[in-house]
C-alpha cells in the first residue's frame, strides 16, 4: 500500500468506567480508500469513529486524522472531515435547501460556492423538485443521499459514515454506494461502518472489530481467501463467532 496516509491510529482505547468499549486498536487508512468498519452491535465501531471525529476523547492511545491529532486538534480535524450518523443528521423541520445552506455556511463556504454546489447536488440526485420540501416529508432513501451530500459539500479529506444505509432496501443501498464510489474516485477517503456484509464487498479494505479489538484487517478478497470462504458474510460469521458482547 503506497497511498498517502489520511487516518493513522495507534493503541486507541476508550473506557466507560470499568467497561472497555474500544480496546487498544491500531490501523492506517490511505487517501481515497473506502475503508469498511465491521462488527456486531456493541463491538465498539461507533465509539471508535466518534473518537476519530473529535466527538469523544480517547482514554489512551493516539491518532491523527487529516494530519491533526485527535486529542488536541479536534476542532482542526472538524474543518477537514464530513460526518453522517445513523440517526439522520439533518433538521427535519428545515427544507432540503435550508439544510444544505446551514451546513455549508457553518463550514465557511462562500455564498457563490454554496449556490453552485447546491445546484450540482440537486442535479446529481435528481431532486430539484424537492428543494423546498421539509426534510421530514421526503422518503428515507432520499434523506440518506441528502445527508451524504450535506456531509461532503465542503469537499472534506475524509467522510465518516456511521451505518449510513440502515433500514432501506437493497436497491436504494446500491444507489447510495454509487455516491460513495463517486466521492472516493474524486480522492475523498470514505470511512464507513456497516452491518450489511454485502456492502463489505464494496470496500477497498475491511476491518472487523470483535469486543472492542481488531480481529481482522485486509482486502475482502484476501480475507475470503484466508478463511477459505466465498462471501464476506461467511468470513464475518467465523471471525465474530466467539464475540462475548453481541446481543
Amino acid at each position, binding site marked *: 500500500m503506497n497511498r498517502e496516509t489520511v487516518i493513522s491510529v495507534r493503541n486507541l482505547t476508550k473506557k466507560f468506567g470499568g467497561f472497555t468499549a474500544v480496546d487498544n486498536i491500531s490501523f492506517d487508512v490511505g487517501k481515497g480508500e473506502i475503508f469498511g468498519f465491521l462488527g456486531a452491535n456493541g463491538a465498539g465501531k461507533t465509539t471508535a469513529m466518534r473518537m476519530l*471525529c*473529535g*466527538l*469523544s*476523547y480517547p482514554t489512551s492511545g493516539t491518532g491523527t486524522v487529516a494530519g491533526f491529532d485527535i486529542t488536541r486538534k*479536534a*476542532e482542526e480535524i*472538524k*474543518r477537514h*472531515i464530513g*460526518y453522517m*450518523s445513523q*440517526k*439522520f*443528521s*439533518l*433538521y*427535519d*423541520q*428545515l427544507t432540503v435547501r*435550508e439544510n444544505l*445552506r*446551514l*451546513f455549508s*455556511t*457553518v*463550514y*465557511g463556504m462562500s455564498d457563490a460556492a454554496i449556490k453552485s454546489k447546491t445546484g450540482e447536488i440537486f442535479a446529481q440526485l435528481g431532486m430539484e423538485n424537492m428543494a423546498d420540501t*421539509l426534510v421530514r416529508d421526503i422518503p428515507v432513501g432520499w434523506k440518506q443521499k441528502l445527508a451524504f451530500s450535506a456531509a461532503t459539500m465542503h469537499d472534506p479529506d475524509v467522510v465518516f459514515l456511521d451505518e449510513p444505509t440502515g433500514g432501506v432496501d437493497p436497491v436504494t443501498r446500491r444507489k447510495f454506494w454509487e455516491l460513495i464510489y463517486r466521492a472516493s474516485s474524486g480522492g475523498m477517503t470514505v470511512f464507513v461502518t456497516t452491518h450489511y456484509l454485502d456492502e463489505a464487498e464494496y470496500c477497498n479494505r475491511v476491518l472487523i472489530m470483535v469486543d472492542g479489538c481488531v480481529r481482522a484487517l485486509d482486502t475482502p478478497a484476501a480475507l475470503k481467501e484466508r478463511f477459505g470462504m466465498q462471501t464476506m458474510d461467511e468470513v464475518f460469521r467465523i471471525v465474530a463467532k466467539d464475540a462475548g458482547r453481541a446481543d
Partner: protein
Amino acid sequence: MKKETLMNLRTLGILLRKEILLMRRNPFIPRIILAMPVMVMLLLPLVANLDVKDVCVTVVDNDVSELSRRIVADMATSEYLRIVATPFTHGDAMSTIERGDADVIITIPAGYSADMVNGAAPRLDVEANGVNVTKGMIGARYAASSATGTLRRWMAEEGMQVPADGISVINLYNPTLDFRNYMIPALMVVLIIIICGFLPALNLVGEKESGTIEAMNVTPVGKFTFVLSKLIPYWVIGVLVVTIGMFIGRVVYGLAPAGNIACIYLAAILFSLVMSGLGVSIANKSATLLQSIFVMFAFIMIFQLMGGLFTPISSMPQWAQYLTYAVPPRYFIEIMRAIYLKGASVADLWMQYTALGGFAMLFCTVAAFTYRKQG
C-alpha cells in the same frame, strides 16, 4: 483574526435563522409564546387576589366612652369587618383568636377618649391572628383604618385640630391597596421565568435527542457562537412577552408603568439572558428532556417562592432574606414594581440592574463553558 470574526458572525447569522425557522415551524412554541402571557395576564390578576372580606374582629373596650362606642359601631357597619365578640378582658379576647373565631383584636385603652381631648396621644392596640397571615395582616389594616376614620370625624365634630398625618394608615405606593397593581408587574416576571427558562432547555435537549446536535458538534462551529444562537432568540421572546403583558395591563386593568418603558425592556432583556443561560446550562448537563424538566422545576420553585413574588422578602426570616440575594428574579421583581408603581429609573435602581447584569453574565458564561463538543 478579523476574517475569523467575520466568519463567526456569518455562522451566527445562519444559526439564528435556523432557530427562528425551527421555532416558527414548531406547532407549539409560537402559540405558547402568545397564549401563555395572554392567559396569565387575563386570568391570574383576577384569581390571585388577596383582597380580604368579612374580617372577624374582637373588641375589648376598656374606655366605654361615646368615642369608643362609635368606633365599635362604625366597624360593625363596615362591609369588610364583623364584630364577633366584645369581651371585658384581653385574655377572653385572646381565646376568641385561639378558637379561630377572630382574625383581629382591637383593644381600646381606658381613658382613651379623655386622653384624646387632653392631647396626650393615646394608643389603640390592633393585634392580628398570625395563622392566616394574609387575612390577619390585611384585616388589621382595615380595622385600623376604620378606627382612624371614626376618630377623624369625631375630632372634626368636637372642633379639634385634625392631624394632617401620623394617625392614618396610608399605603404610599399603592393607594387603593389593589392587589392587582402589585401582582401585574410581578406576573410578567413569572412569564419570563417559565418561557425563557424552559424553552431553551427543551430546545437544546430536543436537539440532543434527535441527534442533530451531533451533526453540529462534528462541524467546526465555535461553541460560543452556537451557545449565542441558543440565547439570543430568548431575549427577543422576553421582550415580546413583556410587551404583551404591558399591553394587557394597560388595556384590561388600566395599569400603565409610572416609569420609563425602556427601563422595563432593559431589565427584561437582562433577566431573559439569566433564565435562558440557566436553561442552556441545565440542558448541557441533561441527557433527556425529563431530566432537564425536573432540574428546571427545582430552580423555578425556588425562584417563585424566594423571589419576593408572593411573600414579601421583608417578611421572611433574616437568614432567608440573605439567601434571596442569590435569587435573580428578586432583582427583576423589585425593578418591575418600582418602575410600575413608583416610576423609578435605572439610576434609582442601579444596584438591581448591576446584580441582574452580573447574573446574566455568570449564567451565560456557565452555559458556554458547560457546552462540550467533545465528551
